[in-house]
C-alpha cells in the first residue's frame, strides 16, 4: 500500500516538473500565435492588438500560473486558435489515436509473442537464426518507410493488392465503422510490425534468461519437453518483463505515432499536436503535451502495479520490507539491455 502511495506521489511531482519544463521549452520557439493569426497582410499594430486580446503580452510567470491553476482545477483550457476546448479536441483525436495504438499493440503482441517463443523453442537452428535476423531487420525499419511499403503493397488505388484504404479517415468517423476500422488497418500494421519485432526480441531475451533456470529444469524433470517448459513456466516467469515492455510500447505508440499519422493522413492526436505547434497555439500545445506526459507516466505506474499483481515474489519482498519496485525496474532494464544487445 505504501508502495502505491509513494508511486502516486512521484507521479504527481513528475507531472508538475514536466509542466514547467514544457512551458519553458515552448517559449524558446520563434514566432507567436498573434503573428500567425495576423498573417502577411497585417500591420504591426494589428498584431499587437491581437497579442493583447490573446493575453500573450502578460509576463510568463503569470501565463504559467494561469495555465497551471486551470490544470489543477481540471481545466485544460481553450485552444486560442480554434476556440475549442483542449480536452474536447484531445478526446476527439483520441478516437483515432487510441484505437490505432490498441490495434498496433494487438498486432505487435500477435507477432512478437509467438515468434519470440518460437525463436527460443524451435529445434531448427536455421529457424532460430532466421527469426532473429527478421526481428532485427523489421525492428529497424523506419515507420515512414514501412508504412509506404505497406501502402504500395495493400493500399487501395496504388497497391499490388489494393484491399485496404491507403490514407485518410472517414469524415463520419466511427459512424462509418467498417471504413474507420479498415482505414486504421494499414497504420496499425506499420506500427505493429515494427513494435512486434522489438517485442519478439524482448520476449526472446526474457525467455533465454529463464531457460536455463532451475524452474525449467524442474518442469522438465516433471516430464515436459523444453519447448513446453518454456511456453508454460518460462513465459510465466518472463511475464513481468513482457508486461513492462508491452506497457511502455503502448505508451510509446500513443506518443510516437506522429510519423504514422502524418503518413496516413489520420486526424489523430499527433497531427493535432503538430498543427498546434506549427501555429504556435502554445496554450493548446502545452496542455496536449502534458496529457501525453501524464499518460506516459501513468502507463509506467500501471506497469509497476501490474508487476505486483503478476509476480508474487515482489509482494513477498515488499512485505519483507524491501521496496518491490526495485526488482521491476531492474528487471525491465535487464530486458532492455538484452533486447538491444
Amino acid at each position: 500500500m505504501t508502495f502505491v502511495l509513494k508511486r502516486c506521489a512521484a507521479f504527481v511531482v513528475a507531472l508538475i516538473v514536466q509542466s514547467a519544463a514544457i512551458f519553458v521549452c515552448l517559449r524558446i520557439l520563434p514566432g507567436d500565435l498573434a503573428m500567425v493569426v495576423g498573417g502577411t497582410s497585417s500591420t504591426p499594430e494589428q498584431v499587437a492588438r491581437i497579442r493583447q486580446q490573446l493575453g500573450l503580452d502578460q509576463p510568463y510567470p503569470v501565463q504559467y500560473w494561469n495555465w497551471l491553476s486551470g490544470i489543477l482545477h481540471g481545466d485544460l483550457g481553450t485552444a486560442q486558435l480554434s476556440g475549442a476546448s483542449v480536452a474536447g479536441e484531445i478526446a476527439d483525436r483520441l478516437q483515432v489515436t487510441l484505437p490505432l495504438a490498441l490495434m498496433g499493440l494487438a498486432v505487435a503482441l500477435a507477432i512478437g509473442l509467438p515468434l519470440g517463443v518460437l525463436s527460443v523453442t524451435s529445434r531448427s537452428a536455421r529457424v532460430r537464426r532466421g527469426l532473429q535476423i527478421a526481428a532485427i531487420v523489421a525492428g529497424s525499419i523506419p515507420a515512414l518507410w514501412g508504412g509506404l511499403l505497406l501502402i504500395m503493397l495493400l493500399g487501395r488505388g496504388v497497391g499490388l493488392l489494393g484491399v485496404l484504404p491507403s490514407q485518410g479517415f472517414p469524415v463520419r468517423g466511427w459512424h462509418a465503422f467498417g471504413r474507420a476500422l479498415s482505414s486504421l488497418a494499414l497504420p496499425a500494421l506499420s506500427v505493429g510490425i515494427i513494435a512486434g519485432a522489438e517485442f519478439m526480441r524482448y520476449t526472446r531475451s526474457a525467455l533465454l534468461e529463464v531457460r536455463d533456470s532451475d524452474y525449467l529444469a524442474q518442469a522438465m524433470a516433471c516430464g515436459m519437453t523444453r519447448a513446453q517448459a518454456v511456453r508454460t513456466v518460462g513465459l510465466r516467469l518472463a511475464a513481468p518483463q513482457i508486461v513492462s515492455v508491452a506497457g511502455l510500447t503502448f505508451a510509446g505508440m500513443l506518443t510516437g505515432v506522429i510519423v504514422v499519422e502524418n503518413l496516413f493522413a489520420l486526424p489523430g492526436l499527433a497531427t493535432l499536436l503538430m498543427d498546434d505547434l506549427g501555429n504556435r497555439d502554445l496554450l493548446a500545445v502545452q496542455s496536449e503535451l502534458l496529457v501525453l506526459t501524464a499518460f506516459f507516466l501513468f502507463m509506467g505506474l500501471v506497469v509497476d502495479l501490474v508487476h505486483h499483481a503478476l509476480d508474487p515474489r515482489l509482494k513477498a519482498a515488499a512485505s519483507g520490507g524491501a521496496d518491490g519496485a526495485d526488482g521491476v525496474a531492474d528487471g525491465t532494464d535487464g530486458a532492455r539491455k538484452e533486447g538491444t544487445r
Partner: protein
Amino acid sequence: MSTDNKSESSATPSTAESSTAESSDTASSATAQKQGGTQTPAASSKPATGSLDASLSAKAKKTKKPAGAGTAGASATSATTTASVTRRNRIIAIVALVVVIAVVAVFLIARRGTNVNSGTNPNANAAATVPVDDAEITIGMVLSPTNLDIRTQSGSSLDQLLIGNVYEPLVSRDENNAVQPGLASSWDVSDDGTVYTFHLNSGITFSNGDALDADDVAWSISELENNQYKDYDAIANYESVEAVDSDTVRLTLSAPYSQLLWNLTGRAGLVFDQDASYDAKTQAIGSGPYLLEKFTANDSAQLTANKDYWGANKAQIGTVTIKYYSDANAAINAIRSGDIQTLSGFDYTQVSPLKDEGFNVEAGDDTDKMVLAFNNARSPLNDIRVRQAIRYAIDEDDIIAARGGVDTALGGPIPSLDPGYEDLADLYPHDVDKAKELLSEAGYGADNPLKITLTYANIYSSEIGDALTSQLADAGIELTVNQVEFSTWLSDVYTNHDYDLSLVDHNESHDFGQWANPDYYYGYDNAQVQEDYTKALASTDESETDSLLAQAARQVSEDAAADWLFNFRVVSVWSGKVQGFPVNMNQAYLPLWQISLLQG
C-alpha cells in the same frame, strides 16, 4: 493570404518543431525511467536469488508434488504430467487459432464494409440527375482554415470556405474578378466618389430565420471599422455608414477610394446578423446558400444546403464536404478511389497523371504571385545593381517548365486579373553575362563572390530553392537556402526583416499597396511609386486608376524590388460527374452553389 494558411496545414515537420516534440518526449520517458530507477535495486526479477526463488519453487513443487517422489515411481506420474501439458498445449493452440481467425475475420469484415459502402454509393449506377437532397460531393483542398472567425483570423482558405457560401458580401465577384451584385442588387456612387448608396435585395434572411436588412449591413461595417477587424483598411477613408431605410445603406468616405467596390466583395463587405449570438470561431451563421454543419481544422468542413435560401444562387448539392489534404499522395489516392470527386491546390506535376485516368485536369487564372522578395533596405540588396544582377541571373521560364508549364511568367507585381496589369516579363530577360557584369560593377567577382541567404517557409517546395541555387551559381552568386517553419518565417522575415532573399506566394488580389508601404518586409521605399499609388486610389476614373497602377508597377519592376518567379495558376482536378466547378481563383473564392452533380 495563402501564406497564412499554408502554415496551418503544414505537414512537413520543421526541425524546430520536431526537435521540441522529441525533446519533451525523451524528457518524459527519462522521468518515467528515473522514477523506476530512483529506488535502489535490491531484488531483480531475474530468477535465481534467495528466498524469492525458494517461495516460487516451493509453489512449483506443490503443484507437481508427485514429481518429488523419486525416480522409482516417476514414470507413471510424469506420463500424466505430460498428458496434462499436451492437453494444455492443445487448449493454447485452440485459443491461438481462435485469435487468428478473429483477426482475419475483422479484416474481412472491414473489407466487406468498405465494399458495401462503395456498392451502395448512390452515385454508382443510377440515371438522370441527382436530386439536391441526395446529392453529395467531397471536395479535396490543400489549405485548411484554423478557425471560422473570419473577422479576425487571416488566411484565404477561410474566404474560400465561407464567402459566398455561408456569409455573403454586399457585392460579389465573378470568375474574372469583376464586381457583380450581391446582397445589394444595385448601387449609386456620388460624382465626387465619396458617397456609396447600396440598394439591398428584398426578403433576405439569415439561416437562423432573422431578416437581413440595412441595419445589419451598417452594423457589420461599423463593427469592422471600430474594432479594426481583419481588412478594416479595405474601406480606406471610411467616415460613416448608415441605414437610410430597411433596404438602403449609405457608406460615406472622407475621400474617394477607387478600390472600394472590389474590396467589398471580400471580408470587408460581409454582412453578419447583429441579433445572433454564437461563437464565431466554431460556428458560422450567415445568409448564404449553404449552412456550415461541422468544421474540424486541418481535416474537413461539412456544409449542407440552406433550404430557405432567399436568392437565386440556390445550392444544387445537398451535402458538400471539403476535405483538407496536406499530402499530395493521400489526396491523389483519395480521388482515384472515389473518396473525393474534386481536388485543387497541388502542383501540376503531382496531379497530371490523373489526366490519363479520365479526370479533368485544368489550371485556372489566379492572382497568386510567387515573389522572390529582396530585402531592399539592407546590404547587399540595397544596391540596385545586385538586385538587377539577380533578376538577370534567374531563368523564370526554366522554373515554370520544371513545374509542368501551367504557370505564367509575371515580371511585375500586378497579375493579369488585377487592375493595372501590364506584361512586364521581358523587362529582365535571362542574361547571365549581364548579371556578371552588374555584379563586377558592384564589386563582386570570382575571388569575392556575392554570398546571400534565401530564407523561406517549408510550406513551399524545396525544388524552387534548389533551382535558384543552381541558376544563381551560374552567375557567380553563392546562395544558401534556409527553409524554416512558417511561424519562424513570420517572426524572422516578416516581422524582424532579418533576411536577404525570401520566397512567398502572395495570393491576395488588389495588393499592390505592399510596394507603397516602406515598412513592409520588402523594405522598398520609392516616393514616386507611393505617390502614383495614392493618386490611383483617389481617382474616380477607372482607366486613370489602371494606368497609374501600371505605371507604378513598372517602376517597382524596373527598380528590381523583387523577382516575380511566376503567376501561380491553381490546378483543379474533377471527375466527369462534376459540373460547374469554379477553376479561377478558387483558393480564395469557391462559390459552391455553382457546382452540380451529373449522373451516370
